[in-house]
Structure formats: C-alpha cells, structure tokens
C-alpha cells in the first residue's frame, strides 16, 4: 500500500506548527498505525530530517500513552480501539490521512503530536483516591460488595487516561474522564467517606485546568477506547449536585 499522510509538525511548545505532507510506500495492511509512523520516521532519518515525535508505549491498548486525531477522529474512530491497535488494513491503497495532536487548552502541544496531559494527573491528585494508608486495611473479605456494584465500578475503572474523550469533545471537556474515576470509587463502600469532598475537589480542579463544559453530546463516549458509558457523567452530576447542596459535608 501507498499512503499519503499530512502530519502536524511543531518544533516546540512555543513554535507555530503546520501540516506537512509525506508519502509512505510499502505499507503492509498488517502494520499498526504506529508501525506505519515508525516506517515514516525511518525514512525521514535516512533523509536527514527529524522524525515525527509521538507518544506511545505499551502498543497493546492499555497504557493510554498513544493517541492522535486521525482524519478528524480520536484514535481513528474505530470502535474500542486505541491508535496503537488500529491497523492499516482499515485504510485503502492511495489514501490520504491527516494526523493531528489532541487539541485542548488543558493539553498544550509539546512537540509534533506529543501533548501534555498533566491536567489529568492534577485532577486525580485533587481527590481521585481512597485515603487508605498502607497497613491500615481490614481483611479483604470483611466487606462484601454486590457483584453488580463491583462490575459497574470496574467498567468505570477501565479508563486508561488517554485523553481521547477531551480530544473528541467539541468543548474539550474532561467530564468523561473525571466521571469515570468518581464512579469507580463512588460505587464501592470504601469510597463513601470521601465521596462528597472528592467530587467537589475533582470538579473544581477540572474546571480550573481549562477544560470546557459538557453539553452531553456523547462524542467522548463514542471515542473512548474502553467504551466508558455516558451514564457515568450523569452519576458525576448527581454526586456533584448533592455534594454541593450538602456543602461538602458527609453528615446531614
């Protein structure tokens, strides 16, 4: 296969960027999208041109490092698939592909396709945990948890923090990410004592980071490689509103 790609090239955070067109020959349909970028980079180096920088690590869809906009869709738009798991067989010989970095005020570009997603870590630091110090735990089976709760909690906990939800949202909102963590912890009995303060703090940090608001459009959930449901955002809203009305207190 021969592929033409338009890649966003940007030297550094302060530099201005532009789309640059490259031709990649000898693309095999069995290659992953990132392996196609590897080939491009090998070509560029042999021509003494700097390779394209992009984030990637596990290449098996779980670490959440990779993620670019491919033809206007986060991770390329294939159901439940990260960029590293997207294969070239979903393209045709002669296709022209546009590749851009995630775009959000809260995700500034570092170089080429690499962005800074540190805002996600800040959100977690502001409350995305259960304060259980090492050694303080009772026996693991001392509190049974209904299977349904545990399963739903797991559904939310699967979030890989890749940022596709933000990238796909017309408002660059981080609500799906934040709601996944809130739901994961809020559905478990261990998460109850800090439930109200957690949601207030995490939402405040999310808003302060410069993400847009949610307009319930659903692009986030459709782009999510782990198929995190939009209903978790409803749960976040419910938690936030009740915590706000309670003034963050866990006692009536």
């Amino acid at each position: 296969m021969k592929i033409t790609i338009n890649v966003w090239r940007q030297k550094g955070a302060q530099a201005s960027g532009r789309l640059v067109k490259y031709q990649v020959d000898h693309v095999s349909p069995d290659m992953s999208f990132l392996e196609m970028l590897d080939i491009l980079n090998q070509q560029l180096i042999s021509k003494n041109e700097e390779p394209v920088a992009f984030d990637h690590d596990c290449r098996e869809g779980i670490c959440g490092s990779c993620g670019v906009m491919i033809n206007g869709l986060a991770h390329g738009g294939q159901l439940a698939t990260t960029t590293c798991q997207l294969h070239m067989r979903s393209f045709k010989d002669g296709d022209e592909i546009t590749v851009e970095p995630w775009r959000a005020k809260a995700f500034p570009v570092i170089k080429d396709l690499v962005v800074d997603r540190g805002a996600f870590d800040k959100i977690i630091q502001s409350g995305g945990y259960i304060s259980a110090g090492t050694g303080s735990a009772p026996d693991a089976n001392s509190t049974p948890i209904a299977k349904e709760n545990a399963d739903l909690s797991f559904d939310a906990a699967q979030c890989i923090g890749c940022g596709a939800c933000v990238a796909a949202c017309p408002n660059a909102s981080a609500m799906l990410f934040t709601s996944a963590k809130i739901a994961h912890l809020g559905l478990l009995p261990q998460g109850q004592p800090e439930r109200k303060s957690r949601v207030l703090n995490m939402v405040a940090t999310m808003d302060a980071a410069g993400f847009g608001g949610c307009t319930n459009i659903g692009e986030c959930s459709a782009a999510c490689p782990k198929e995190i449901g939009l209903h978790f955002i409803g749960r976040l809203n419910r938690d936030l509103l009740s915590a706000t009305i309670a003034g963050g207190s866990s006692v009536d």
Partner: protein
Amino acid sequence: MAAALTLNQSTIGKKAIMAVTGIVLYGFVIVHMIGNLKIFEGPEGFNAYSHFLRVVGEPALPAGTILWVIRIVLLLSVILHVTAAIQLTRIDNAGRPIAYKKVKRKQASFASLTLRWGGVTIFFFVIYHLLHFTVGTALPGFIEGDPYHNVITGFSSQVWAAPVYIVAVAALGTHLYHGVWSAMQTLGINTRRTEKLFRGIAVLSGVGLFAGFATVPIVVLLGILK
C-alpha cells in the same frame, strides 16, 4: 441560596441552573401549546381561555397576580438560562483555542451540535412573537382582547409570518430534542437504565411540540381556520 451560589461556580452547577430553568420553560411551552390548540374550539372558546389566563386566581388574589407571578418566573428563567448559556459557551470555546484542521463526528446529533444556535433563534423569535401577538406593535389591525382575530389576521394577512413561526418552532423542537435529555443527564436523574426512557421523552417532546405549534400557522395558512 448559598448552595445556589456555590453551584454557579462550577460548570456543572451552571448547567444545573440551565437545566432547572429549561424545565420551567419546557413546562411553559407545553401548556402554551395546549392552549394554542384551543383555537380549534372557535373564537369563543379560544378567547375565553385567553381571558381566563388573565384573570386566573381572582378574586381570591388581586387582579393579575398569578399572571405576573408566572411572567416573572418565566422572565427570571430566561435571564438565568441565557446568562449561564453565554458563560458556558465562553468556557467551552476557550477549551479549544486551536481548532482541528480536520474534524468529524461519530455520535453527535444535529440537535446537540446546534443547541446554541437554536437557543439564539428562539430568543429572537420570542421577542418578535411578543410584539406580534401580545403587545401588537408588529401586527397591523391588532385587537386587544381578541386573540382569535389576531392569530387569524397575523398568519393570513402577513404571508411571511407563518413560515417564520414554523422555522422558529422547528428550532424549538430541535432544541428540546437534545435539551430535555441533556437536562435529565445534567441533573443526574439519568442512569444506565433510564437512558432510553429519557431519550424517548426528549424525542417525543421535540417532535410533539413542533407538530403542536406548527399546526396553527399551517391550518390558518391553508384557510382551514378563518
């Protein structure tokens, strides 16, 4: 009140304000639509209903009390709804200062993407509509206290009025098609299990209100009502 002020500090809180005020306005348009359809009862029925709205609550309450309470609630709702919308739109636009060169949507409905434009359309339409049928300055031959006459005249003497109304109520229908569901989600009433139910109610609201509101201008235009 303290909670309401705190609410206004987060994007979710602002949206909750929009959702609550939206539901108030939604309730109003449903009642309004039902009232409109009373036009099929003929001039007496329709005018009597209109009169009832102005005197409801009397004589237990001073003249016009309920009418004005409703008007104030509606006006406040509109102000809060629009203010929050403007603030949120600014936040949302600031969320992505550099646009994608190429962007596609996988999931978003037309209604969800045009919610704001629908809102703007409805806002200006409401002003026109008040001048047209309530105050009468936009309707030559307006007769205070004879709404049946005003409606028939409005749509039959001004040929462009009916299309304007139809477009506006289409915008309203589209706005609610997404807005009603969105309000349920924003207020946290929606769960996994209610997702389909609320989507259904939203679709029904959008289509139903459009149909209900568009009926009157169409039947007048077609000469069915005179």
